[in-house]
């Protein structure tokens, strides 16, 4: 029994090691919005033929942020995900999937005015 546990732990450790080596930032974009209306970050990570995507926008609670994310899958039609306008901070994480590319549009609004809108993409 003890030997079995040892083997399982050894395999798990090897998987962890290999996983930590193959995963790295495939695309990373970090910038400020126009005129100090906050910041945004877009990151796509690749591991074992799959990609995840993390998009964040943040700044003052006087401004509202919204993310629209288009997911371009390998074999099926693109899928859109979005947040509502939220104050101070907004985020979308898409898990590792068989995706070719991600495209995000990030909007910053101050009351009834759109202050900036950026489109970023990566694979």
């Amino acid at each position, binding site marked *: 029994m003890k030997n079995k546990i040892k083997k399982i732990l050894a395999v798990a450790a090897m998987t962890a090691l290999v996983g930590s080596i193959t995963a790295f930032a495939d695309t990373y974009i970090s910038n400020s919005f126009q005129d100090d209306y906050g910041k945004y970050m877009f990151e796509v990570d690749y591991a074992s033929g799959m990609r995840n995507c993390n998009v964040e926008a943040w700044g003052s609670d006087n401004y509202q942020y919204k993310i629209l994310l288009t997911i371009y899958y390998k074999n099926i039609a693109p899928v859109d995900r979005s947040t509502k306008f939220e104050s101070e901070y907004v985020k979308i994480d898409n898990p590792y999937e068989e995706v070719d590319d991600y495209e995000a549009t990030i909007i910053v609004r101050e009351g009834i005015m759109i202050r900036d809108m950026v489109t970023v993409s*990566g694979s």
Partner: protein
Amino acid sequence: MKKKIYILLIAFLALFIIGCNDNNIPEEKNTQEHNITIENPSADVQNDKDSLSSFYTNFVIQDKYRVYRIIEKSKNMDINIAIPDWQPEGDAVIDTADFVNAIDDEMSDITQKRIDFLKEKLRPNGMSKEWKDSKEIFIGYATPYIKEYTSDIVAETVNKRILIRTKSLWDFLLKDNKETINKYNIFCISINMYEGFYHSSNATRLLLYGVPEETFKDTIKIEDGKSVRESSETILEKYNNGECKLDILTDIELTKSGNYYMDFSEIIANNTYQNIILKIELTGEVTDEYTYAWEGFEYKTVNEQAYQDWKAENVDKFIY
């Protein structure tokens, strides 16, 4: 010895689990929502897309204005925004309504469709049709303040009216952990100054700056262990203070609404610049009632001959 091996294995497992948590869990953090809605939800009509009303029908026409009623219940806000019901003849161009509608969560999806439509409509022949080889660049607009239609809330936004905008036209990113510049051959700017409505003498002054290699290197800084580029405003501020070198590529005043093209193919072929900065300014008398809209679209060439043929037929639309 056995104990050490177990500790090591458990440490590896812990590292693995931490790594998974960092990347795999879908998460949408909810903070306070701000629900602004525009009355009369728009029907997305599919035919004759050149017409603005193919995308937006959520307004009423009054005194030659398209009047949008905007409500935010949590703040007891109920206001109107009136946009001149005018579009230039010829090509479809950007409209203030494209940005007014974007403030509504539901309407922002339709706004995106309209922007995508413009991006396709203005794509020159010979450009790549891959979605990732083109992109839109938000530049700016002004909300008109017309006393008969609006409230103090709109007056406040007018006070923060921005008449000058700067944008970096090429993307700087980390690709496969290497610093990369994503360059686009063609830039199209769509301008609407509503000159047929206002009969004013306002103009859009457009400047292009080339960023040489040496200046470009100085604009890269490290944040959280990763390289990021300084904003275009910061670079232009340094240039105006004599702290860095930029080359002015063009300085032109545009007096008519329309779609204007710029071709950077030669600059890319010769690797002359590592970034292009756009500065755009509304000149002339700008009253509170005035509105304007600017939007940019970028493309990459895949068929040089098809592009050159198209360019020869549209040479009057090129300003660089």
